[in-house]
């Protein structure tokens, strides 16, 4: 492995382990005002009247009439309101109550009476007529493939909501003083917030600063949502006479009012000719929730990934994201990928079973290769290491031996093993980097030879403070202690794009490395020097045309193979996980421990999504809204995960690194669901698939056995 991969102590290790790190909730609260958001109790309608209780001195209420700029949270589209009088989901923010005593603010909030005119909401995306976005892929000659098919196999798949459960809830503090607005808190993308606060407050760019506090986990959940919260606290701060206004969510509010992973409904038709798949027609539907937020880009990734790691010559994919009157669904690690990769992995197994062939070999025979065309007529430009990775994982997990061993089980406990092969397109979809993000980074050298990294990217736990420093220290050949990197403040750092899409090391890290090359060239001892580096699109890419959805959607891909073993207690339906294996190719790990930590953490989130995590709303209302009922894995719910790295270096990434953060959340769920269906001897078409579902299967199997007798 490249020497840069050798692990070092993380830069933020000490302050986090000794408790001195300051998260947004840790700022002294003397002199602060506390805000609580009044949220809609109905899923759709208009607010007729808000009757406030009598508020003592020092307490006030803000709503849309207090928004001096646009009452819009600027994102990709601007349909999310800062405050609304036309709520579109239960929990939509109507206003904010602010005051000096947090307990009293809570009490007054409960006393507010809201009158609504209710309208009929839509909760089921399949019944929604409101299409936010739609994309079509048409590759090869699908019509002929289907016309000439021996048979057509059709299956549908569903996935559910997932909540991020970053351990630190969302929180933000805003202060407006002497004409300057300072906002700081828990976030992934300071410049998203900056643009949103400009748009909502109408203040000048230069009068607004956004600063990231130490952030307790993001996973996508602090990509889009903090923009909304920042606008709300900023609007409240405008009326606070110079005092800071703080909103830190209780867990219940965080679960019931912030973004989730999009539920999905995928239908696949496969044309079969001579035992081979010759074409596919796919419908990918995402439930966007009430506002568009990130749905456009999530849908792009779901659409172009719908055929997974398989080379299917003729495909038609229709992707659409529809509005429902539920919490807006936004970014979540994997970003539309996990949904379709679950579907395609299940589909390939189900087709193999129909064709009476062994699923893993069947899948392997369709793996894409270097030089093959992608679903969007781009090219897999670099080697595809899947076959080797698959062999590694099959052997690590003892897959075939176990498959044999687990045949004909009839005791109380039944075991199963499943395997999945997946990719994650590294970085932004399409021309996002070139046309939208246009990242800039800066290096600032002081006279004493210390070099400060200036980027807008954030560390939310994934280790960026450490990895970017390693890249710069290595390229400049100076000690890491001479490289300075702190959490970003928009007053000081350029916009180097959001910390999302597994792009930070691959894109921003590479920009920094190139900046280092310039700095090295110009280096003069004892002088202050600054170099700036702008994004440059790789030359080899086939330009992506978002209109017709053609071209290279990604410059390169990360790859993963996962295997999971389960044991099912047939008396209780309980699914336990005695083994989990993974091989991940995310290019050169900039720090081996950090990358392994990302892989293990994402893997477990993916397993949780598969068999545990459930917050399906009933009539638009989230029922499982506390940590005691939205169940995430504990340390006793998983065994030692066996994770290995395969390194296929990406020449355009720093020292060969590719996108890493999201990769592990793609393949865990299909692998565990395959294991469950193998243990039970059935086909499964949805997740989460939990103990109750297992019992339903066992009950019907028992009933069928009785009938046979």
């Amino acid at each position, binding site marked *: 492995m490249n020497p840069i991969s050798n692990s070092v102590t993380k830069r933020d*290790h000490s302050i986090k*382990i000794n*408790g001195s790190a300051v998260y947004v909730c840790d700022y002294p609260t003397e002199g602060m005002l506390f805000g609580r958001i009044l949220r809609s109790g109905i899923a759709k309608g208009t607010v007729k009247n808000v009757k406030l209780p009598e508020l003592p001195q020092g307490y006030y209420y803000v709503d849309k009439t207090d928004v001096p700029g646009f009452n819009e949270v600027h994102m990709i589209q601007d349909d999310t309101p800062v405050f609304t009088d036309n709520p579109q989901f239960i929990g939509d923010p109507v206003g904010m109550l602010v005051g000096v005593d947090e307990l009293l603010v809570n009490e007054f909030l409960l006393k507010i009476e809201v009158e609504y005119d209710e309208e009929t909401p839509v909760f089921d995306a399949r019944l929604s007529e409101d299409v936010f976005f739609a994309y079509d892929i048409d590759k090869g000659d699908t019509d002929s493939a289907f016309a000439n098919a021996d048979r057509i196999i059709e299956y549908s798949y569903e996935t559910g909501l997932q909540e991020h459960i970053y351990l630190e809830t969302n929180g933000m503090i805003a202060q407006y003083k002497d004409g300057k607005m300072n906002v700081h808190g828990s976030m992934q993308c300071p410049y998203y917030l900056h643009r949103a606060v400009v748009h909502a407050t109408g203040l000048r760019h230069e009068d607004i600063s956004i600063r990231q506090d130490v952030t307790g986990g993001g996973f996508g959940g602090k990509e889009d949502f903090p923009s909304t919260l920042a606008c709300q606290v900023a609007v409240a701060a405008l009326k606070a006479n110079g005092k800071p206004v703080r909103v830190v969510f209780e867990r219940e509010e965080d679960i019931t009012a912030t973004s989730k992973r999009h539920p999905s409904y995928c239908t696949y038709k496969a044309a079969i000719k001579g035992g081979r798949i010759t074409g596919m027609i796919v419908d990918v539907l995402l439930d966007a929730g009430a506002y568009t937020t990130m749905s456009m880009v999530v849908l792009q990734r779901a659409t172009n990934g719908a055929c997974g790691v398989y080379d299917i010559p003729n495909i038609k994919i229709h992707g659409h994201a529809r509005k429902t009157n539920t919490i807006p669904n936004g970014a979540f690690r994997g970003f539309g990928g996990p949904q379709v990769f679950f579907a395609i992995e299940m589909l390939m197994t189900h087709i193999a079973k129909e064709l009476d062939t062994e699923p893993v070999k069947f899948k392997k025979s369709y793996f894409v290769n270097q030089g093959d065309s992608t679903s969007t007529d781009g090219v897999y430009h670099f080697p595809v290491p899947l076959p080797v990775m698959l062999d590694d994982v099959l052997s690590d997990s003892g897959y075939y031996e176990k498959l044999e061993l687990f045949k004909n089980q009839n005791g109380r406990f039944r075991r199963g093993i499943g395997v999945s092969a997946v990719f994650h397109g590294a970085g932004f979809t399409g021309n996002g980097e070139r046309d939208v993000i246009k990242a800039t980074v800066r290096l600032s050298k002081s006279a004493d030879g210390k070099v400060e990294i200036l980027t807008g990217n954030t560390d939310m*736990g994934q280790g960026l403070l450490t990895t970017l420093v390693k890249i710069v220290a290595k390229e400049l050949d100076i000690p890491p202690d001479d490289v300075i990197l702190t959490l970003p403040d928009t007053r000081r750092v350029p916009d180097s794009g959001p910390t999302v899409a597994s792009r930070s090391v691959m894109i921003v890290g590479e920009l920094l490395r190139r900046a280092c090359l310039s700095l090295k060239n110009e280096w003069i001892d004892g002088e202050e020097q600054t170099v700036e580096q702008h994004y440059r699109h790789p030359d080899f890419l086939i330009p992506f045309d978002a209109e017709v959805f053609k071209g290279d959607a990604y410059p390169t891909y990360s790859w993963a193979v996962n295997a999971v073993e389960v044991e099912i207690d047939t*008396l209780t339906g309980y699914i336990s996980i005695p083994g989990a294996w993974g091989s991940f190719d995310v290019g050169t790990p900039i720090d081996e421990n950090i990358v392994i*930590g990302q892989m293990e953490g994402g893997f477990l989130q993916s397993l949780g999504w598969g068999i545990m995590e459930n917050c399906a709303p009933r009539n638009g209302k989230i029922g499982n809204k506390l940590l005691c009922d939205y169940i995430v894995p504990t340390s006793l719910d998983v065994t030692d995960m066996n994770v290995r790295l395969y390194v296929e270096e990406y020449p355009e990434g720093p020292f060969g690194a590719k996108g890493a953060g999201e990769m592990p959340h793609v393949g865990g769920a299909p692998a565990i669901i395959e294991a469950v269906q193998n243990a039970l001897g059935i086909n499964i078409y949805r997740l989460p698939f939990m103990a109750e579902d297992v*019992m339903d299967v066992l*009950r019907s199997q028992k009933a069928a056995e009785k009938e046979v007798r």
Partner: protein
Amino acid sequence: MQSLIKFILNNENIIYSESPSVRLLDWLRDSQKLTGTKCGCKEGECGACAVIINGKLINSCLVAMGSLCGANVLTIEGYSSTARFAALDMAYASVSAVQCGFCIPGMIMASECLLAEKNYPTENDIRTAISGNICRCTGYNAIVKAIAIASDAVEYTVPPIRKRWDEVMDVKELAPTSLYDALELRKNKALIPYSGGTDIMVSGLCSQNSYFFINNVSEMRQIISDDKYIRFGAACSFTESISNPLTPAILKEACKQIAAPAIRNAGTLGGNIANGSAKADAALIFMVTDSLLRLVSANNERILPVKDFYLGKGATALADDELIVEILMPKHGLDNYYYKKVGARNALAISRTSFAGIMDIENGVIKNNATAFGAVKDIIIRLPEIDKKLIGKTIEEAKAVKEVYLEAYDEAIIPRPGRVGVEYRKDICMNLLRDFLDSNGI
């Protein structure tokens, strides 16, 4: 005037005179500015706020200040100057076990409690010790490794100093140490008895209640044995019950599966009964063993079968002036038992269905047969009239009435609709009951 509550925080004497109902977590963060202790849920379900009280891991969100009379409280700020912290610090760093960091102070507290107890913990020991500390970043692998690495170095380090307040802490009007004083306070209807706090402190309004604290009443903290019964003081924690040699295996097993270490260290047997919940795991064992409750008031005392204590959902026979002082569990006939708790995960799980069975077989004849089903109805199901069908029979004779017996239960068990499906819970009950019979050769 508020009572004075004296305790030790990070080796410093504290005299606290504010409201005794305030959460320790809030006091640490807001008033002491000890913000290393994090808040992740305020329901004891994440462990981010865990601190060490009297050497035990406790979630500070579920602790009211009044329960701290005479206690020693250690937070990450006090712990981080110790040698054992240094060992953990290095070990966590060596595997990059710290990601977002929000769970880490609590995780370190849990690590310390484990290492104080065991020099060479197994992987399962480690996973159990941190099972109440949710980490969403790491998948736990690195943390488990870090603790294992630290355990190799730990022998050579000195555990943190744990001095106790040296005067006797008897705040009669708030946290008495004698039962007499506790019962006097109990007459005051406005006060809610507070034992472990793990249940009442979950409520959002908990800090507005008025409590009196019975966690230091010595008569309620002992586990003793007389000729007929094992007598459990109602204020004994689950952890104390697990570690006491007098405790029968069936109760140990149930207590071990309650929530996670920090909850087991605080939650008490009496509280588990008094909350009137059909999901209470220790209560299920008291039901199946036909245990008795010793209920005492300032001028009365009575013994009540635990079965008669439950009147409905959350409703009990406890009189306004009574306390559960002891739980009397029969000493004999509990060895051949069956216990299964079904939750949504392996730790921090609330029972979705639970089952306990006892079959006392002597010379081939069933001397006693008792079953109980938890989390099915408003009250734990205990139906001796059905269980009687097997008593006095040989195994062979029991086999003959097995289907009749099962049918009787099939009719009797009608789960109350809840978040988890009715059919699912019913199936589990019947499956486990059948397995209980199977395991006894019936």
